[in-house]
């Protein structure tokens, strides 16, 4: 019965919110193919759009058992028939320069401060129940955090298993994803699945929002668009429990 060093029969379990599942993700077809030729996504990073607006317990197994297998097979087939891919030199240089800039910076703010603030403010303003005002405020906070991120400082300068560097890079992506989520969240003026707005839009609005939110990063920010929902056998129903 021991979990995290605690036997719940004899001691209370410390409870905290946790990320149960990441709904949404990189849009793929049913073979894991993304918008970019040759790039496949599978698992929790991918979004095959089978779960609707709330994934039910156990259903994430589909991500590994079904779509993991399909994506793996499709990616392998693609890789076998395409041995090399041309990466424009400029793109490569840009990536190298970005890494170089991070590694060469000699002072600045450590990533954890920005990451912790991102986490606590997202929980507060974009958590279980969402409100327009809070979401808009959070967008401003993200802008501020993104500005601070420009000065993020990586302490580890080594080339072996440098998780300080990878975590700093990851933080940049977390900030991007947070901005995408907020933009889509503000625009979705209804309550659906895990997107609950009990104060301003408590009901589901199929007329205006029975659609997928698709976000692309264009120039310096997220650009929101929509995609129709393909429904076959199961129609959306009210959640009555």
């Amino acid at each position, binding site marked *: 019965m021991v*979990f*995290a*060093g*605690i036997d*719940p*029969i*004899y*001691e*209370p379990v*410390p409870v905290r919110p*946790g990320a149960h599942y990441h709904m949404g993700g990189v849009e793929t077809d049913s073979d894991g193919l993304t918008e970019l030729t040759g790039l496949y996504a599978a698992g929790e990073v991918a979004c095959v759009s089978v779960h609707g607006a709330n994934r*039910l*317990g*156990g*259903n994430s197994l589909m991500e590994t058992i079904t779509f993991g297998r399909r994506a793996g097979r499709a990616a392998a087939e693609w890789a076998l028939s395409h041995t090399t891919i041309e990466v424009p030199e400029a793109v490569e240089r840009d990536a190298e320069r970005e890494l170089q800039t991070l590694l060469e910076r000699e002072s600045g703010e*450590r*990533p*954890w401060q920005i990451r912790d603030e991102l986490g606590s403010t997202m929980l507060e303003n974009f958590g279980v129940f969402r409100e327009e005002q809070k979401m808009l405020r959070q967008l401003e906070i993200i802008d501020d955090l993104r500005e601070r991120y420009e000065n993020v400082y*990586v*302490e*580890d300068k*080594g*080339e*072996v*298993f*440098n*998780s*300080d560097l990878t975590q700093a890079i990851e933080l940049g992506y977390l900030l991007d994803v947070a901005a995408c989520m907020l933009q889509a969240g503000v625009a979705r003026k209804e309550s659906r699945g895990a997107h609950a707005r009990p104060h301003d839009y408590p009901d589901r609005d199929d007329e205006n929002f029975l659609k997928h939110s698709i976000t692309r990063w264009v120039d310096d920010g997220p650009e929101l668009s929509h995609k129709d929902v393909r429904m076959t056998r199961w129609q959306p*129903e*009210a*959640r*009555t*429990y």
Partner: protein
Amino acid sequence: MAMRVGLKIWRYDSSTGDRALREYEVDAPEEATLLDVLDIVKDRVDGTLAYRKSCRMMICGSCGMRMDGGAVLACKTRMLPIVEAGHVPVISAMGNLPIVKDLVVDMSPFWSKFRAVGPWLQPGYDQPQDGREYVIAQERLNHVHKEALCINCGCCVSECNAMESDPEFLGPQALAKGFRFVGDPREGRVVERLEEYNDEHGIWQCTRCYFCNERCPKGVDPRDAIAKLGAESVKAGITRDMGAKHALWFARSAETTGWLREEELIPKTQGWVSTIKQMKFAMSLMSHGKARPVPIPHTAADVDEARKLRSLVREQGVSGAMGIVQGEHALAALGHGFEPDRDPYDREDAFPRPYLPGENGAPPTPAGGDAGMGSRTQADVTPGAEPTRKPEGGA
């Protein structure tokens, strides 16, 4: 509530070969695990510290490392009792695997052995041929339950004595995984697998030190899985290895005379040529009083009990792995203090008894409630049946 936690960490950088024991001290919340403390150290004290982590909840198996010389999962190890004891533990990388940096090891030898045991179901010919799902009763999978719990963290491999002397040894993790498939009623390559696991770096290389059982954070008990593979091998007639012969002789000896005839163990296990070669060693043992010069043949007074036990096992058909599984279930009941008439919540230090659904005095369960887990209808478990709908809709 915060506590002051001290750690000594063995730092290592494979690119320079630099190695040093560094000491850290940080404030951490009382419920912090070793992994939480490492996170605090990395964030606030030393960003160059390297370790693996992912789920933080004992599912992914990333954060295996050594604490005071023994493998632990960092996310499972609570620091409060260690701090209260005034102890500053030494944290280092897992053993038996090359260190990449600090607490990060190169897992590739681990994965190649994992791969070598064929860790996937290789179905037999008695499968449903019409494309239907092969559904088996839960009871038939229960005896590989422990082995199925493995999260590939490597804690057992880190502590494996046999692997220290034979780095090619398949090892506790891979072999436990092997039994997970040997014991699966759907598996079609049982005998072939047993043949493979009986090779020179296979099951009989295990020294039975039981460190893998002791250090596994998930209760897989890899040594017991290796024993089950041994029992299944003998049952399948794969007895060419000395280890199998050794075990068979133990059983035979106990059944015939009720005691262990050690003098015959070497010839029965290793053969006469090897025995003659070891005569000098045997003489030395005798001169030091470690072995008797002349074995006195006798039969133990209670040998009938041993024989009865042996025939009971045969009657019940619990030879092979099933015999060990049965014993484990009995031991588990004892180990958990299971007494049919005694309630764990009666203990003085127990937490107040919780309400269980439907119990007297329990708060009412919400109508149609499934605790947010999504309901399991009959259609979920019966292949081919139409899914049923809840009367109130919902999912």
